[in-house]
């Protein structure tokens, strides 16, 4: 029910955006999210963009995790 899927914003038209998931296009309402631009990724939930995906945070979390699990067991706590 609370399922939301990352979708790429293709264009913005007032209160809606055209978004793409695996090359399939959907319309996303922007009533809940401001400052959306083409190229952004948003989380699409039941026809609404509910939050942006932060590319920097995504990269950093993955990198930190990869470093963490490379350490010897117990060496570093997350």
């Amino acid at each position, binding site marked *: *029910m609370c399922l939301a899927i990352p979708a*790429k914003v293709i264009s913005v038209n007032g209160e809606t955006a055209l978004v793409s998931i695996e090359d399939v296009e959907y319309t996303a309402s922007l009533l809940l999210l401001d400052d959306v631009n083409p190229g952004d990724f948003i989380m699409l939930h039941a026809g609404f963009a509910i939050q942006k995906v932060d590319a920097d945070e995504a990269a950093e979390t993955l990198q930190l995790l990869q470093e963490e699990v490379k350490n010897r067991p117990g060496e570093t706590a997350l």
Partner: protein
Amino acid sequence: MKYIDEYRKKDLILSISEKLKSVSTKEIVLMEVCGGHTMAIHRFGLPSLLPATIRLISGPGCPVCVSPQYFIDKALAFSRIPNVIVTTYGDLIRVPGSTTSLEKERANRSDIRIIYSVLEALTIAKNNPGKSIVFLGIGFETTAPLTAAAILEARKENITNFFVYSAHKIMPPVMKALVEEGVKIDGFIAPGHVSAITGTAIYDNLASECGLGVVVSGFEPVDMMQSILMLTSQIEAGTPKVEVQYQRVVKTNGNKTAQHLLAEVFETRDDSWRGLGVIKESGLKIRKHLSTFDAEQHFEVRVPESFEPKGCICGLILRGLKTPVDCSLFGKKCTPADPVGACMVSGEGTCATYYKYRS
């Protein structure tokens, strides 16, 4: 697929699994309270990657499952009013009420339509000026702002034949209620998309007052395994706190626009949860100034006394006290094709998930 594939990498998942086995010494119970998490845990077989010390249990995270029998029975009553079109998200239609379901009622003669977005209900209202459209509002903080936005759009566009029957609920009171009831939980895997709206402050007192670890998690297997590692590390170190694993989507302050819409349209009320009874201030009621959109204010219906299906232990499963395999109906009298209880209906219900992915 971006932001999905990189969180399904097998070698990374196995590395986290190894790490967990090396850091976990205490026997702990972690509860997830989101149906999306329940699905991910079983779909990707995560319990088999955990040390024997870590046990995962499912809580009341599926909106279809926690909506009480009375809600279904009242929705059925709305559907029998002449010139009413009931609109609903898909799963709800198959939940057995006390005597029938929306699906069966639709086969009779009621006009009941499945929609993907609440905005479709507004379009149906505009296209059918002679009819009244009742939208069945279920879901937690992720979904309730969408309903709020639709109500405000209806007001803006002067649509007077759109009504919401709200069974929207919020998570913090039920999480606290489970702890107070004495369900053994050491930490919560907190719902990612609820938190994308609310931010993280709603969990603060679970950590500070109840001494529980809380990690807000994403929905891919790497996300979930990392969250379990973060919780385990917290508990091992004796430092329970609120942390966010799902940082690419969840901000500390959440989505302020959505929070404002929620506050403008809804106020909290005591609400009934399947299997858990009435929990104080856990439901969302449409505020008085928007009562013209409130189906409960607009229509008067008589609802016969509701009763739970015999032998169904959905309530105990929703509280994490039993698992589906403890139920004598599971997989025999109760299957996804012919469900007895709500937890077998929704794709993210604990029983349906166990049924689909059981080995």
